[in-house]
């Protein structure tokens, strides 16, 4: 599970709590599984990748629905006289 996925999972859990509900069993099990994996990696000497250490939220304009098309580069050649 990537840092982004755990962020999404935690966001989903927090949303259900803020709406007065309780987190689903599946979501909690996924969080625990992620933590176990992180611990196993640490035991094996695998250092966390950047973004795994904290919940660094990576956002892009596309994710926010604000994506813009890349400007097209047009090359016009002047005709040589």
């Amino acid at each position, binding site marked *: 599970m990537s840092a982004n996925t755990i962020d999404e999972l935690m966001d989903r*859990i*927090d949303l259900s*709590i*803020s709406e007065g509900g*309780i*987190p689903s*069993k599946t979501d*909690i*099990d996924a*969080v*625990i599984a992620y*933590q*176990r994996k*992180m*611990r196993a990696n*640490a035991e094996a000497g695998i250092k*966390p990748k950047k973004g*795994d*250490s*904290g*919940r660094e939220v990576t956002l892009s304009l596309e994710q926010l629905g604000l994506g813009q098309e890349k400007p097209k580069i047009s090359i016009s050649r002047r005709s040589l006289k």
Partner: protein
Amino acid sequence: MNKPISSPSPFLPNSLIQFAWDSTSLNDFKICPRKYYYTMIEGWQGRDENIHLRFGIEYHKALQDYDMAKARGVGHDTAVRMAVSDLLIRTHDWDPDRDTKAGKYKNRDSLLMAVCWYLENFRTDPAQTYIMADRKPAVELSFKFELDWGPPYLLCGHLDRVVLYNDHLFVMDRKTTTTTLSPYYFKQFQPNNQMTLYAIGSQIVIKSPVRGVIIDACQLMVGSARFVREFTRRTKDQLEEWLVDLRYHLAIAKTYADQGHWPMNDTACDKYGGCPFREVCSKSPAVRKTFLKADFVQLPEEERWNPLKPR
């Protein structure tokens, strides 16, 4: 966090003589009477202190929830799920400032990590929760007992858990730290005010001899945690000696309270990672209040540290 419950004052009426003592207040008093005055009498608390306190409370509560579930016969995975789910609900709104040193290491994510990793680390733990004579598991036990000398004095405390380990009873105490877990770290627990008081208090609650304290220490690092378990034992003679010494300490505490002056122990300022009040004490007496107000918050009486506050 729940609204604080008002508790009776730990001080004798119309005086600053503390009659209800726990390891925290006694620790402060033994280290430096001035430090004790600032924290216990005046209620000053460092701005980062809240983060440490909340982290500690939630860490202990989650592990206690797990222990209680296990003692009821719930399986490991289900007990972990219950503890983690409740932890996330309780800490839903907790978002300490990660730009502070405290918040960098102690925040909701590192709390979740510490709890999950601890429960995985000690998944097959030979230390089993002791079931008391009334069939209740010995988890998060409070003790309070009166000393046989006065002015009436109460010794109070909260034990994380009492366990059976190789057929012997031990108190289990869980610590979190950012310090490296070396033999040097564990040396601080022998002799140690808190651990000796716990060894005494546990025998009052359990009504059986307790060998000492098991310290389950968690070293918090950014994105990682490690755990080390050590034992600290106490003999009956050591416990008795501590109680004799206590009589002298409390007599001195009463003298300071009677005279309204708590002297500074200027040999302790750099001990234990440095006293939080060091900067304040280094200023001229006339301007200390200004510096206190700048770096600390004065808690209202009901929120101050109180050994009589139930958990």
